């Protein structure tokens, strides 16, 4: 029971982090039609910027400053590359973001090396927030959760309760009309892109030290994000939210499972009153603990959902 509570909490905190990242990705996708391959690179840049700034000015100023820097970098990418490629079509924009992701990876390995850097959780957050029978939910995870919830609420309020948010919503479906009404649509695009990059940077600041800060973190996270927004339904913010929570929880649970398929089969056969069969000749993969299969889980989910519901769980129709 206590295992369930703590794993669920850990899963939700990871899921909320995933939502911080996928919110910007799915907004830029539905607003500009750009699938941003470099989105997870912003996450990585956030983590590295926070690592570098924490040494100079401490963690909390870095928490504020890094997302701003990453957001400005995103704005520069949008205005110097993506906007100029707009007339070439979405596939060209996708390729450009792939090139940007490649260069960010190169730059990060150039400056900080190939290995992980020592970006630690600040000492303020040491200790457990809740501890149930030896399973603990750390202070820092709780802090992550609070920040992510705050930001998720902020995104929701910003999009639904402010004038700028309503203009964004309108520009998603009717950019020409919004432009005719006197709004500078390219500028809206630029700031939404920068905002998404900044949110990804913030996720990097709070996620980089909870997990590992290394040059491959962008690739691993980026693939998860794509699964989140496809399974949630392309362009659907609510879908991204629920799917991020689902995937975060599933992933966290899967890595803590130590039983193997062979164990499960053994238990099932004994439950059924049958004599336990001989398990000496079972293939290697059946004897592995289920946690080894955790990396497969998101992609299996992806294939299952796409087969059963091609538009994603929250997606509407074929339009995207």
């Amino acid at each position, binding site marked *: 029971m206590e295992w369930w509570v703590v794993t669920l909490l850990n899963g939700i905190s990871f899921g909320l982090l995933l939502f911080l990242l996928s919110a910007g990705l799915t907004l830029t*996708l539905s607003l500009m*039609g750009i*699938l941003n391959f470099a989105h997870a690179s912003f996450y990585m840049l956030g983590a590295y910027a926070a690592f570098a700034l924490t040494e100079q000015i401490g963690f909390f100023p870095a928490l504020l400053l890094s997302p701003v820097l990453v957001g400005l970098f995103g704005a520069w990418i949008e205005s110097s*590359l993506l*906007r*100029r*490629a*707009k*007339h*070439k079509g*979405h*596939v*060209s924009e*996708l*390729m*450009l973001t*792939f*090139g*940007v992701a*490649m*260069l960010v990876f*190169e*730059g990060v390995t*150039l*400056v900080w090396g190939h290995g992980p850097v020592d970006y630690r959780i600040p000492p303020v957050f040491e200790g457990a927030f809740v501890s149930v029978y030896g399973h603990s939910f750390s202070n820092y995870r709780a802090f992550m959760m609070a920040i992510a919830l705050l930001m998720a609420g902020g995104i929701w309020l910003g999009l639904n309760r402010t004038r700028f948010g309503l203009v964004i919503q309108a520009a998603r479906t009717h*950019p*020409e009309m919004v*432009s005719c009404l006197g709004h500078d*649509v*390219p500028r809206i695009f630029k700031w939404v892109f920068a905002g998404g990059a900044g949110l990804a940077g913030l996720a990097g600041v709070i996620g980089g030290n909870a997990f590992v800060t290394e040059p491959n973190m962008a*690739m691993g996270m980026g*693939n998860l994000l*794509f*699964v989140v*927004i*496809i399974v949630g339904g*392309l362009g659907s913010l609510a879908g991204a939210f629920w799917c991020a929570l689902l995937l975060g929880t599933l992933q966290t649970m899967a890595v803590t499972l130590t039983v193997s398929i062979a164990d499960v089969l053994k238990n099932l056969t004994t439950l059924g009153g049958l004599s336990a069969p001989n398990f000496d000749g079972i*293939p*290697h*993969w059946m004897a*592995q603990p289920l946690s*080894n*299969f955790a*990396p*497969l889980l*998101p*992609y*299996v989910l*992806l*294939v299952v959902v*796409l*087969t059963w519901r*091609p538009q994603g769980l929250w997606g509407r129709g*074929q339009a*995207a």
Partner: protein
Amino acid sequence: MTPTIKLRWWCMAMAVLPLVFTSSYSTSLMTQMLVGILICLSYQVLLSQGGMLSFGHAIFTGAGSYAVIHGLNTHLFEIGATGWLWVIALPLLGGLTAAAVAAMLGWIATARSGTPFAMITLGLGELVWAAAWMFPDWSGGEAGLSADRTVTDPPFGMSFAQAWHLYALSAVYVLACAWAVVRFTQTPMGLMLRATRDRAVRVAFLGYNPHLIRYIAFIVSAFIAGIAGGLTALNFEFVSVDSFSLQRSGSAMLFTVVGGGALIGGSIIGGVLMVTASVVLSTFTPAWSAYVGLLFIWVVMRWPNGLSGMTPRDVLARANGWGLATAIGTIFLIEMTYHWVTAVAAGMPATLDILMVSVNVSQASHWSLAIAFTAVAYWLASRGRTPSREGRS
């Protein structure tokens, strides 16, 4: 010039080159280039013919490689003419395996083209990559699997022990595939594929099924990619899970785009560059993938038809001395930064030679000169261009 005449020239080049560069290293390098050409050719079927940007191409090259290594390790036929034919047929087996994998995975990937296709193939590529790690008995894990391609007592003495034997086999396969792909694009199916790329909705209204057309193209592309993967495995006699990695898929995409949309010419440029960058350029500079990334961005931004789409007239019209100066300045800055971060930190001397110029990275004057030169060149280069307000809607 018709494609057939061009093909004759390429045949001659492929026959003459190994007579000029006879060392086994350069022969192996040229074999890799042939395989690179084949990979780009298979990607062309998807991208330039079908308008599908795939990030899962390594599934099919990897499947071909594994099929060949497992085929060699069956030890069924190693002696005489049967063994010889078996080795010759193995890349074909790789292609068929890849086509079978594509037939299984392709239907959900090809439901839509464009961005969803790119994301789904990325997910599928990661699925296969992660799955290969799960089954080390079969995939060999990171340590990989190796095999021996040598045939004892073969006909004509072609035992595949020497590098040029494999070069000849690859050349035959590349020619056959190039011919097949060109023929494929001329068939009604090939025409419908291009129609689907441009106007999928109209194709659907004409009574064709765009999804099915994309699916068939996906399988054809995978078949060619599987042959390429099989030849890679025969060349190195080794395969590991690395062959399913996103880096492989990305490099297939990247070099095909850099090569450009011309079916044969683009593939040749892309394939040759692929090997030149990862094998030759990497011996000169550790920053080679930064250059590849910059080249890629430059091509996507400035040359939508790729390097093969550059006509001499275009190049002359757009030739810009300051653009070249910017490129040189950028090379200096990248090399100086790399040297500063890696060599100097390890206690090596601060001087290095870049493009026959000696630079000392511990002197501020050299840095400011390089930065100022690049900045001024970039400013002058972008000033000559038409102001880029085209993106503003």
